[in-house]
């Protein structure tokens, strides 16, 4: 009997270990380099154009986690208590709260059994740990923070820029604030969420970030592109 118990304890320890291992300290997060690090957006923001129809900002080094599950009522309840917000169950919807104990949390519907959780970068470890400690049943939670970045695009011509890039209908009647879609973006893909009438969030993959940055610069050229630090 004791043997079995020891094994179980070890397994649990391993389970925790294999998640994001150790929380990154504030000091270490200083050396983190977002996918557009090489583009030196800070100096473009400082020296580049200050007026234009499209505004661009990289919300870098955020915590992004993919949650996969077909949540039971208990799981939904637990997830709500862990995130401070209930999972959006309606297709193509999202929720955001500032109220949670871990700060601002956004949850984006991706598919009937997939959500993207967006939090501050230094909170990913806590979330991962709490899910694995407390959420029972079949699910998967994967940290994709290193592989993903967020482009915040806005401005008076942001819709035109997006219309050059994605085939989804962005008209307010079809794409209200809060709606989220995963779709084609140029020759790559993006998860697009409307944050305000003229503000969108694009969640993109790291390896495509430079291509998409080039694309957005090009698509914005006729409207003027303003980079925000």
């Amino acid at each position, binding site marked *: 009997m004791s043997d079995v118990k020891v094994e179980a304890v070890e397994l649990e320890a391993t389970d925790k270990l294999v998640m994001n291992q150790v929380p990154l300290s504030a000091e270490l997060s200083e050396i983190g380099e977002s996918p557009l690090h090489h583009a030196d957006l800070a100096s473009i923001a400082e020296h580049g154009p200050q007026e234009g129809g499209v505004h661009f900002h990289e919300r870098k080094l955020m915590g992004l986690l993919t949650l996969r599950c077909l949540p039971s009522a208990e799981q939904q309840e637990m997830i709500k208590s862990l995130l401070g917000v209930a999972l959006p169950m309606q297709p*193509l919807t999202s929720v955001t709260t500032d109220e949670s104990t871990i700060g601002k949390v956004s949850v984006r519907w*991706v*598919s009937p059994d997939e959500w993207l959780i967006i939090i501050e970068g230094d909170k990913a470890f806590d979330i991962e740990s709490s899910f694995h400690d407390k959420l029972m049943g079949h699910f998967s939670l994967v940290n994709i923070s290193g592989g993903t970045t967020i482009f915040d695009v806005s401005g008076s011509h942001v819709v035109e820029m997006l219309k050059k890039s994605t085939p989804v209908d962005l008209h307010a009647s079809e794409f209200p604030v809060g709606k989220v879609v*995963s*779709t084609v973006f140029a020759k790559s893909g993006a998860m697009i969420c409307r944050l305000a009438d003229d503000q969108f969030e694009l969640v993109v993959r790291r390896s495509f970030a430079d291509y998409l940055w080039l694309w957005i610069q090009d698509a914005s050229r006729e409207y003027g592109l303003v980079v925000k630090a």
Partner: protein
Amino acid sequence: MFHIYCPHCCEYREEEEFHASGQAHIPRPLDPDACTDKEWGEFMYFRANPRGIHHELWVHGAGCRKYFNITRNTHTYEILEVYKVGEKPSIVANEAK
């Protein structure tokens, strides 16, 4: 250029987001080792390929990444219905009824 209703996202999306994955409803034999070469070959390669009503598997690759089925007329390109994996089509070709 198809306009396809994704039964998971519950809205129409452009064909560029999807990918056709061939004929639907071709279950993998439960005991492959008991299949003859002929049976295995037919499972892998032989297809109905009708001119008319066809049930096919598509995936919303750039969207929710879910597979689902489409009943489509291969001649007129009309999409007659979409339904989830595991469900049965409600529209079938006359002779198959």
